[in-house]
């Protein structure tokens, strides 16, 4: 059945969750001026990879990447899927840990982070055990409830913008390419589309619509970096851990009965992240299930326990940052090899028939 709407909304939600937290800081600290250039390069990567990935997948209707690789042989499947599995688990661990820490930094300073991790894992574990269709449908409901709030806050965050900070527009050297923080920023650009290859045969989608969704994300990628820069200036914005959240925090809305709209904004994004985590868990389950067929419950539960224990063992934010940095290599490996290999396998198979 064609479920383009489901996939498109999921695509939007997953990326929105990724865009607003760590990514603005990564971009701002990678380049002093003309931030549009790193953003544009990142987006270019995003579009090219997504296009290649979907093009490659379109050679295999009703097949997900697990089927595709295992058709090529057992060794092949292990070679490609094991890194993916490791990547999924690592992203899950880092995600759970990082976002629980973010929440304790921004508010809930009294709540221990293990309690927040439990909340994260139990909700996303529940979702993952229910299967992909439930995750996508939940995505629709969440989009209906929360996207208006996101929009409202993004518009409100323009309140203190000073357009003069837009200048200087051009940064003539490309030194940002080599900074670690720019590497890390790629988790927002390319960290969210892997699920497109897992949804078949449960859900199918129109490739064009996914690309439109990716295009819809461009303003968010730009705003998340530029609103802090335009409000505070590069010099100040680079001193913040979460520049965008600081910006939202500095907006003042007289007529609202709530004082800190930031909290609602952040938490809406956090729900999107929960959704993303559940998707990651489900993908990990799919890979496991391919080798050892079993009920989702029996793999999601151990996964969540493993993730819980590992993320408890990460004690400070420094370690999280270091893990993010290590993960960016694995991420590049996985997110470059998977789309490209799928594309070439598809091309070859098409050539044969």
């Amino acid at each position, binding site marked *: 059945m064609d479920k383009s709407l489901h996939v498109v909304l999921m695509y939007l939600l997953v990326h929105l969750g990724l865009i607003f937290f760590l990514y603005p800081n990564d971009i701002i600290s990678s380049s002093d001026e003309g931030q549009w250039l790193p953003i544009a390069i990142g987006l270019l990567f995003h579009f090219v990879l997504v296009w290649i990935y979907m093009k490659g997948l379109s050679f295999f209707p009703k097949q997900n990447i697990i089927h595709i690789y295992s058709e090529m042989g057992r060794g092949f499947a292990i070679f490609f899927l094991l890194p993916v599995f490791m990547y999924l688990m690592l992203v899950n661990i880092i995600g759970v840990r990082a976002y629980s820490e973010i929440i304790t930094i921004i508010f809930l300073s009294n709540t221990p982070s293990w309690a927040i991790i439990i909340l994260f894992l139990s*909700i996303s574990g529940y979702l993952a055990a229910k299967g992909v269709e439930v995750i996508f449908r939940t995505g629709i409901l969440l989009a209906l409830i929360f996207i208006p709030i996101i929009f409202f806050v993004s518009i409100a965050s323009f309140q203190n913008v000073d357009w003069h900070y837009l200048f200087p527009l051009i940064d003539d050297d490309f030194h940002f390419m080599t900074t670690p923080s720019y590497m890390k920023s790629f988790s927002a650009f390319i960290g969210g589309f892997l699920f497109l290859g897992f949804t078949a045969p449960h859900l199918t989608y129109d490739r064009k619509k996914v690309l439109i969704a990716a295009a819809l994300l461009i303003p968010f990628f730009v705003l998340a970096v530029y609103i802090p820069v335009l409000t505070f200036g590069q010099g100040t914005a680079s001193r913040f851990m979460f520049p965008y959240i600081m910006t939202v925090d500095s907006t003042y809305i007289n007529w609202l009965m709530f004082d800190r709209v930031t909290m609602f904004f952040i938490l809406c994004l956090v729900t999107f992240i929960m959704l993303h985590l559940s998707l990651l868990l489900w993908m990990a389950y799919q890979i496991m299930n391919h080798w050892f067929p079993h009920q989702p419950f029996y793999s999601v539960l151990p996964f969540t326990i493993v993730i819980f224990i590992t993320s408890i063992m990460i004690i400070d934010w420094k370690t999280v940052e270091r893990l993010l940095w290590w993960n960016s290599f694995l991420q590049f490996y996985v997110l470059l090899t998977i789309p490209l290999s799928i594309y070439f396998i598809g091309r070859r198979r098409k050539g044969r028939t």
Partner: protein
Amino acid sequence: MDPFIKELKETFINSDDLFLHEEEILDVPVFLVGFKTLIDFTKTKVILQKYRETAISSKKSIGELLNEIGEVKEKDVKEAVSFLMTGKLLIVSNNRRKYVVIEPVPKMLNRAIEPPTNENVLQGSLSSFNEDIETNIGLIRKQINASNIRAEALSVGSEQKTKLSMLYFGGQADKKLVEKIRSSIEKNQDREINNLQNLAKALGFSGWSVISKVNTTELPSETVAFLRKGRVALFVDRYPFALILPCFLWDMFTLENDRNYPIPLMASIRLVRIFGILISLLIPALYVALVAVNPEVLRIELALSIAQSREAIPYPALVEILLMLIILELIIEASVRLPSTIGPTITMVGGIILGQAVVEAKLVSTLLIIILAATTIANSTLVGIQNSLAVRLFKYVLVILASIYGILGILGGIVLISAYFASIETFGISYLNLNYAKEGTKYG
């Protein structure tokens, strides 16, 4: 005496409302057997008399006459018992091997068609279903004059037979869905259906689902609208509701009767209901979260007045709200239980004692009373009692999560509830389906 009669008598040994009336039809002595409580005997006899007279004038034999007025059956006690139970009259002659089942004039044991008692209708057709399954199907046929309404009769139960009827629009309803319902009922032939839990079991649903998977309505006009959108209606004899399958989230907010208003009004009424579910779910949780965990979200003026209203209250916000919510549930439950003549007492006691005295005694804050009132009122805007009951339950999940995690807990709870909604499927059709009618027509 005929052994057959004897056996019948033994079966109903202590049932004094069974009558065995000796009569002569065309000079043949027969027994008329039936239940006094189900059969209007006098009127039935008058009719029998008429038959006899015409038979005498046209000189028919007894065999011909009996063939004409009823169904001739072999003597089988088990079958005869079930005929008697459904209110038929048996004519048994002593020395024949056969007996005749005739349709007597029944005792009037049904309500008349009345205005609905569970659903209020504003500016719409008022007749509602009653306990008799045939009346209900008749009401549907009356409501919509269409030849493609299919009414399939089914019956379930090994000991007690329950009549079931499945109605759908031929060409409109998904054939696979109809087939699935039919087969799951047939599979569960020997289950007895006394209530909706039994029916849910018979349809193969889990009994632990909070959201009821069948939508109930007692209005023929609503039922017809559902049928027209390709849904299936089940009727259970002696249950004055149509059970609509499948059931969707959107049904919580829509009534067919809304379409009797202009579109802007209809849209705003439905918007009010959406606010209703949001308010009744969120406000109590928000109170707990803002008072106990995240007071910084409140504006200072509001924070101070809440702090003032909670001054000297001896327990945490969670206990306070749970206490009052439970008392409120008790009031609601009590006003359902009580006869309508004493009902207002509860309202008064609840309103005055709780609203006024509890606050003055500094047991709960004034704000909480306002919140409870808003919650209860908002909850009642939802369509369908079973839906508002479910929402009432979900509210507690959010309250508890909010007491632990504050606003994060509320939003986490929303994710959880959304996930729960998303995971509900009836016969493979998602609960969140919005345009089922459109998809349904594809199967035409």
